[in-house]
């Protein structure tokens, strides 16, 4: 049984049909790349899965539950996490507080008011910051970070709730080559406990990290399969050559 199954997803904005029967299936501990030309509907599909948009038609199942109508909060509580395309760390808070905010999201109100989990979560906050190479900036405001570091902080925040599925929308956007390489390294270890759906323009990055790929074109699935299958697929080559 797959972890995530989105089928027949249609999304219409006014006269524009962004998705027209798109589908995506992700297994446990699978890294799944979502690629396609600009405007092919990748981000919209991510949003429909994460709950930022509700699909006009279609069904999204996650861990054997129909979550199509779930709010983002309900999806997060079911074990799904999203890193937005535009970095949305909380700029005026310190890095430490950004991570703590993400970690404490499912604490009870009582615990929050009495700050009862502050001490318990401290080690987890520092471990996450160390893991993402941000420990030396722990008490700086997030606004002071470079763009790449903000992306890492955001990935760390998305992982804080120990999700079963992490949705990454263009994690390496605006990063240097070195930062991209490090991002790949940072993501590898999470495979043991988490699946990943990743939207990305950098095909080398996708190839290095993903097990399977789904290619979207004009709101429809053009091809889906392992990385080598997709690389050998002539229609995929064609759309990329056509638009290159």
């Amino acid at each position, binding site marked *: 049984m797959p972890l995530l199954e989105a089928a027949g997803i249609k999304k219409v904005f006014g006269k524009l049909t962004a998705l027209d029967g798109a589908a995506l299936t992700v297994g446990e501990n699978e890294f799944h790349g979502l690629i396609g030309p600009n405007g092919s509907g990748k981000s919209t599909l991510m949003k429909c899965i994460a709950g930022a948009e509700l699909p006009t038609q279609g069904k999204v199942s996650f861990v054997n539950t129909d979550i199509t109508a779930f709010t983002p909060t309900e999806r997060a509580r079911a074990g799904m996490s999203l890193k937005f395309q535009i970095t949305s760390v909380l700029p005026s808070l310190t890095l*430490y507080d950004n991570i703590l905010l993400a970690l404490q999201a499912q604490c009870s109100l009582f615990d929050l*008011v009495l700050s009862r989990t502050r001490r318990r979560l*401290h080690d987890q906050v520092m471990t996450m910051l160390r893991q993402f190479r941000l420990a030396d900036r722990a008490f700086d405001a997030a606004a002071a970070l470079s763009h790449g570091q903000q992306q890492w902080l955001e990935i760390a925040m998305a992982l804080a709730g120990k999700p079963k599925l992490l949705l990454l929308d263009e994690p390496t956007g605006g990063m240097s080559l070195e930062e991209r390489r490090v991002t790949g390294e940072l993501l590898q270890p999470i495979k043991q406990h988490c699946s990943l759906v990743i939207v990305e323009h950098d095909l080398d990055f996708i190839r290095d990290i993903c097990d399977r790929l789904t290619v979207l074109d004009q709101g429809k699935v053009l091809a889906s399969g392992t990385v080598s299958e997709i690389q050998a697929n002539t229609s995929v080559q064609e759309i990329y050559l056509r638009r290159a």
Partner: protein
Amino acid sequence: MLKPMSVVREAIAGDEADDAMAERVAAGRAREQVKAGRKVLPIVEGVVLVAALLAPLVLQDYLTVFATRVIILALFALSFDLVWGYAGIMSFGQALFFGSAGYGVALLARDLDITNIFLVLPAGTLIGLAFALLLGGFLLLGRHPSSVIFVSLGTLTGSYAADRLARGWYYLGGQNGIPSIAPMSLGSYEFSEGPAFYYLVLGVLVVVYLLCRVLVRSQFGLALAGLRENEQRIAFFGYKAQHLKAIIFAIGGAIAGLAGSLYAFHEGFVWPNMVGVVVSTQVVLYVLFGGSGTLIGAVIGTVIVEGVSFWLSDNYRDVWPIILGLLLLLVILFRPLGLISFVLGERERVGSFGEKPKEKRNAAS
């Protein structure tokens, strides 16, 4: 200590020495920041408290009465500051909770002869809380987050409707309100205007202030900061953002209710303006002027706006509202974070919610 995630353990195995160093650097930097910036807020709070404690000793009697009113309004301002400054909920109807509690205790005194301080203040607080729960439940507790415009217009409408209702309802005294409310009492002692009433409300303000301070610096306060900065983002973490908003809105309503009941007994009468749009707007100005998102800013803003209005209305009888309006505009244009931002840095205003750096050093060693 909790067992760290297995993944994480692996990831850090390689460069633990670097990490330990990095952490020491971070802790050192944090301590420097603490040294550099942390001290301003307690100093400002201390100065304001000492000034407030000494005020009745140096002020003439009629000014002590005025100062009492200002302290009550500062308590009211705290309620708006929690809701707007900390949680980012634009409430243009905060007077609804202030005034309805005022009317409530006035009715208790008029119709049931209940004036005991231990009955009327909790009653006023509960009335504020109940109205805020009702209105907040309606405006904030939808399945999907409600827009700022919806909430601000909803609260504004609530306040306006209450004002019209009070004006038209004979039982509530119509346009004239409820005059000659019996004084608040404790046994045979009656609180009348003057130093005793002043110190009573100052005590209430200090207690509520301290409770609010603990709340906004708690992990709940961190959740509020997230709510204020990016509500959508924290919903994706799994926060029940609407619940958080409804809770802080209700707490704000309760504090406004407490302030409203003190105000009713201090002034000795209640009238429709007290629930209406004018008072609702006034409290917005106090907080914007002093500095929203800092508790002391709300208090200072109230004192200065009320103090300056009092002085101007004495000295420039005809044009004082224009002068006051210009002053407010200047502050809001050039100091959007309020007067407090002259002395308080951004880092200290937002604050830090984790464990204190000193404890961190211990935890690391």
